[in-house]
């Protein structure tokens, strides 16, 4: 029985409805007696309402309100209230894109609030990590040195020069004396330690990065083209991509779990609502002829800044 209730309590829709109810009751209670729509043609601003007006003003970093300014703000508030009520009475909230969007957005916010209600248990979190471990992969990293063959100095010969130098370097160690004399000075580093694909791509271009991670360590290889010219490369080591230990990424796992939970609840709650509706559409969605409806761009009154 208790298991059944427990499962039932974890149902997203129920959680959602309970929270909604709570918010509704709380909101109603908190706003009782303030200048909200009322059917009797009476608008009453309470001391708290006035306090809120003052506070909103001060929160913008301004000087305290003068009595005259206060009077004008109160007038504006009353004006807004009257117009709002009259607009409601005329049904101006119906079929208004902005109002609809805003209401739908408020529902999405409600979903989000529900999702933040619960923290995962340690077991839950670890189990979830096991299932989603690949999300916490560290990228492969390469440590390498290179010799640069500059098209500025060698023009079209740069590639061939690099190839010839490679032949001379056969069997040579990475820091052998021959290496230094064959190539051109490079503008940046001759040695790159522990770089990810993205870091290499940023420094030398994506083509170079792709070729680099295919190389076998411990020998001169190439020529490889970068965004700057041709290179011979000696890879010291390539650390393959690896999944991190749970303990090292627990905070990230928790964040992702909550985010996942949020999406699940949002979609679950929405699906439950969706189930109560029958949606009727034309058979062929593409059949409508929009050719003549193609809108011309409308000038916006206020331009970009």
């Amino acid at each position: 029985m208790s298991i059944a209730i427990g499962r039932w309590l974890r149902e997203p829709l129920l959680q959602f409805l309970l929270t909604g109810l709570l918010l509704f009751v709380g909101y109603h209670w908190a706003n009782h007696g303030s200048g909200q729509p009322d059917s009797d043609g009476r608008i009453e601003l309470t001391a708290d309402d006035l306090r809120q007006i003052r506070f909103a003003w001060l929160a913008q970093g301004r000087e305290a309100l003068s009595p005259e300014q206060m009077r004008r703000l109160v007038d504006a508030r009353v004006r807004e209230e009257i117009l709002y009520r009259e607009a409601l009475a005329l049904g101006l909230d119906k079929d208004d894109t902005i109002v609809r969007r805003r209401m739908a957005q408020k529902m999405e916010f409600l979903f989000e609030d529900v999702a933040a209600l619960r923290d995962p248990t340690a077991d839950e979190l670890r189990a979830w990590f096991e299932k989603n471990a690949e999300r916490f992969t560290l990228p492969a990293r390469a440590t390498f040195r290179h010799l640069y063959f500059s098209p500025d100095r060698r023009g079209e010969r740069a590639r061939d020069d690099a190839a010839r130098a490679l032949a001379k370097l056969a069997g040579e160690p990475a820091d052998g004396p021959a290496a230094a004399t064959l190539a051109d000075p490079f503008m940046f580093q001759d040695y790159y330690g522990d770089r990810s694909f993205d870091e290499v791509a940023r420094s030398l271009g994506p083509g170079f990065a792709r070729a680099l991670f295919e190389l076998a360590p411990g020998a001169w290889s190439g020529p490889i083209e970068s965004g700057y010219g041709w290179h011979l490369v000696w890879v010291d080591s390539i650390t393959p991509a690896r999944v991190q230990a749970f303990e090292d990424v627990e905070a990230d796992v928790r964040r992702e779990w909550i985010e996942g939970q949020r999406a699940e609840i949002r979609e679950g709650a929405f699906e439950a609502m969706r189930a109560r509706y029958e949606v009727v559409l034309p058979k062929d969605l593409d059949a409508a002829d929009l050719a003549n409806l193609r809108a011309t761009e409308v000038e916006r009154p206020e331009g970009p800044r």
Partner: protein
Amino acid sequence: MPNNMNLHRNIFFKDCGKVPAMPFSALDSKHPVDLWSWMDGQRKAGNDLLAISHNANLSDGRMFPTEVDTNGRPIDAAYAASRVRNEPLIEIKQLKGTSETHPLLSPNDEFANFEILSVLLGNPPGRIAHVVGSYARQALKDGIALEDSKGFNPYRFGFGAASDSHNTAVPYRQDNFFGGHSFTDGTIEARMSGTLVGGMFDARLEGTSGLTGVWAEENTRASLFEAMKRKETFAVTGPHIQVRFFGGWEYGPDLVKQKDWVRTGYAKGVPMGGDLPPAKAKAPTFMVWAVKDPTSGNLDRIQVVKGWTMSGQGFEKIYDVVWAGDRKPDKWTGVVPPIGSTVDVENATYTNTIGAVELKTVWTDPEFDPSLHAFYYARVLEIPTPRWTTLQAKQLGIAPPDVVAPTVQERAWSSPIWHTPSAEARKAAPRSTTVAELTQKGAVALNDAQLKALIVEKSIWLQNTVTGDKYMIIYGALGKGPDAKPLTPSDPGYVTQRFPVNQGQFQIRYVGKKVAMQSLTGDTVEASYLGTSRTYNIVDGKIVTELVGTPIEISVYKLADKYFGARSNEFGYANFEIVPAVAQLSPLGAAPR
């Protein structure tokens, strides 16, 4: 944005932990000086911050004023101090145009015509955007002219560039340009249809977003902030071109070839954004280095842009200092010919078979005068590559747009380095006369009638007493009003009699490319060659001309039998004298010009 003049600033805080509860907004004030006061207050409260001016090219000439601020208060030492304290950087390039310079401000700069966008935000009907006061190079020149003539310089700034994207993503590459204004330019069809963004400019004129480079000790917020504050920054049009620029007196010609040249750069001089130390040699030397973006076009050349001032006039000159390939600079002008182009416009492709990966050199100013205020900055140009409009036209199978160039030369700008003459050196500066000095000697300003008698329907030879250059101005007939007698078509006044009262046309003649024209004269070489004219009026004792709607007034003073002219943008100097007609413009055997 008072009256559609874009005066926005981006504010950067040193410490995220200390930002104020609310930003200072246009609701608080529309005047930049008030923003700076607020920033001073923040700084006093321990919250260091800096401002970067945004989109000067859309400021309607109000970003870099020389006379009054937006409150109508004079630009003075207090204004300059407040601005320099708070605003070390300006945005030189972004999606809505470039703010470096404009072809009418820099007529001898063949690369000035780059991503120009001269409009007003909100497109107020009946208003033409002002060019004067909207561009950085002019402001730098005006700044040193103000410093020389009045003792303060509001325009000591470095360069940055930014996105101005309104999409939260930055379209900084030609090959991935996705617009910057949500739905108005968010699809290739919307962009390439020439949608008028906000009803004010053709989406095809949008350029790629710029980026700011910062040379800092380490990649931390505090270190980057300090580097921005000291202006050790550069701007790029999108590609990650890297540029370094050092100035000093002791850099040897081969220094740049040494491995630790950057260390020496700092040890023996100043990096970009700095001031040259006191002179130790006849002329300063500059080390400049640039490397291409590994995923973009090769480099064409590096130029040094120099500005200087004499007697209230601003001048500029561009030197090609290092370039790709074996091109020979022109024997007489030193200008390096264009690099050519590998762009296939029809297929929207290019190759890196021309240009260089890396360019570096040590350059000495060959025309240095230690008595003059000057600034120097480096400009790096890529080889031509297809503009995004060309790439997207190819994608759509349509012709590249006729409203923009099919190719661009992407570029980078280093922040300037300034030379301030020592008090001793400044005494030797060539100096022309001031209005105050003339009046003291008894010179009298001409009134309207005297001005008319002196110049109207006359061809006047003038000498710029600062440069020594002489040229002619033809002042055509002024409109005489409705009761002028009807003229026959053979009468010269048959056309001009229909001008409004006191308005005529003037034409400048005999200006060649080597004449160092001072600031705000427009393209006088082209005018001389094409015979174009501009409007002038005689009003309230002044000859009133204009440059894209900004009035430039000339007062004329008579001293004995001599006439001196003072232009309103030359800070109190009277730099022109009426001289006898010249018979030969370039007599053989005379000292070469």
